[in-house]
């Protein structure tokens, strides 16, 4: 019998410093095929595990991580050539089939961008896809991950809208929470699928704004964050309203979420 809790050992191939507390790790790809929005359980040996979204399209395995506690701090000490453990891929990701030929509206804050990133790349590869628009909010310009990459994507036809909560001198971009840029950048679009990932309050206000603009609940998808220990529907930590966020989600459609007998955001 296969053991779902047993990680596979993989080498860290490349590390990129994104911001003072966010790094991107490219690791060996040994797990089964993954789709956008899925995640892995990452082990730092001697410390423990943490759930991390896969921020690349298959077959690449790229993880973008914010330093926040014991596992992520220890991960930041590792160098290229060191090993970590991974198991997965887990969860139900973004509705990629539904997205075909439709417009994509992506909304994120903080480290909510990594799980959305593979959607952007799958759209660049697919000539039949509709337009792609990203609204991304960070605390300060220095907290913005993938800054250089976002500029390149803008040149490739992706509509990139960024904003920061507070800004030092010299920032020429938007200031304010993500809903401010959403208000300007997003218009009612019956042919769009909206996908968001970020802090619960942000998603609450962002989905309300989308509904006010005339989007319907079945056009809005949300990736939930929950405490997760196992990733496979066993440990119970991620359970919400009878669903296992790790297995039935983390991506849910807004109307599905609202039917559940518990507050989800």
């Amino acid at each position, binding site marked *: 019998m296969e053991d779902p809790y047993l990680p596979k050992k993989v080498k860290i191939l490349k590390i990129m410093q994104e911001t003072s507390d966010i790094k991107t790790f490219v690791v060996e790809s040994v797990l089964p095929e993954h789709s956008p929005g899925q995640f892995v359980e990452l082990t730092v040996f001697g410390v423990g595990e943490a759930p991390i979204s896969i921020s690349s399209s298959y077959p690449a395995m790229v993880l973008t991580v914010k330093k926040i506690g014991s596992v992520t701090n220890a991960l930041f000490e590792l160098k290229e050539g060191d090993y970590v453990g991974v198991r997965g891929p887990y969860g139900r990701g973004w509705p990629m089939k539904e997205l075909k030929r439709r417009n994509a509206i992506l909304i994120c804050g903080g480290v909510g961008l990594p799980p959305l990133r593979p959607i952007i790349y799958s759209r660049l590869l697919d000539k039949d896809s509709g337009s792609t628009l990203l609204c991304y909010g960070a605390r300060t310009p220095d907290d913005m991950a993938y800054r250089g990459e976002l500029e390149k994507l803008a040149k490739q036809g992706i509509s990139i809208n960024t904003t920061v909560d507070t800004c030092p001198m010299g920032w020429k971009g938007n200031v304010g929470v993500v809903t401010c840029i959403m208000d300007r950048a997003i218009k009612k679009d019956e042919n769009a699928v909206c996908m968001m990932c970020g802090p619960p309050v942000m998603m609450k206000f962002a989905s309300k704004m989308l509904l006010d603009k005339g989007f319907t609940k079945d056009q809005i998808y949300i990736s939930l964050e929950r405490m997760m220990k196992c990733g496979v529907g066993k440990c*119970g930590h991620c359970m919400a309203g009878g669903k296992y966020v790790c297995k039935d989600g983390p991506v849910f459609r807004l109307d599905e979420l609202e039917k559940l007998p518990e507050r989800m955001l």
Partner: protein
Amino acid sequence: MHTIPREKLPAFLEYLSKGGELIVPAKKDGLSFFKSYEKGDRLYLEKGNTDYSAKQFFFPYKEVLYHYDKEGNFENAQEPRERILFGIRPCDLHALAVTDMFFSDEPADPHYLERRKRTTLIAIDCTTPGKNCFCDSLGKRDPIGHDLLLIPEKKFFYASAGSEKGKKLLEDSGLFEKTSESPSIKKIPCKKKASPVDSSRVKWEKWGKLCFACAACTSVCPTCTCFDIEDEIQLKGGKTERQRTWASCFTKDFTSVAGGHSFRSARPEMLKQFVNHKFPYFKEKFGVTMCVGCGRCVTACTAKIDISKMISGK
């Protein structure tokens, strides 16, 4: 049907203990629980249920899943062994049926299932329920899934096999006799009754206000299976243990994420998760309730929260 006289029970236990670790119900310092059998143990049988279930023998309070070295080479830490669990009651057989379903659901949990596969279940039918039992209201009074069932009579036990393993015990031990008669003993009904209402009609605030969130209920409940996975570096040998320990939905940390936000911190919400998981959530997925009406959480609750009343909308 077979029979075994009461005075031959010690001989049967001796016989069983040759086949592996024998686990029996006993009572010490006012608490009843399952333990490894030692000669001369006085068994706690025929008197309602044990205070603690046999859950820990399949899903231990703390278990080491793996050891691994600095290079990240993992080694399985399970040491499978044959066990005979003697004296388990019908409600706890139902509890095992529930946890079997849960841990067999894909992806299956090999750590639990391996222990389960290696355990022979010798059940004792329940004639006298404990003061907080309500298993018959939930249809969990009739034994299921046992290898052998003993049914108490005044001077002897009836024995009926539920599996090939059980049949073999009847034949090979040489302690049982065939009979054409059948059990006559009356089962006393549970004193407590429950008739589950829709979750929206349960008085969450009323009961939630009483709750101390002490997690005693989830730890005594035979069907609670939530866990943490933690790594602990061993002082000797430079190895790390990956441990699995029980967790409870009555702790704030259970649902807290980065930034310290906890999704369920109010007590009525915690209580609602406990009860909804036991009833609508589990039933929707597996077709049966997760709660088996063993009454242990009622006995354990210092705030006198009574799940049989709560689920009935009282």
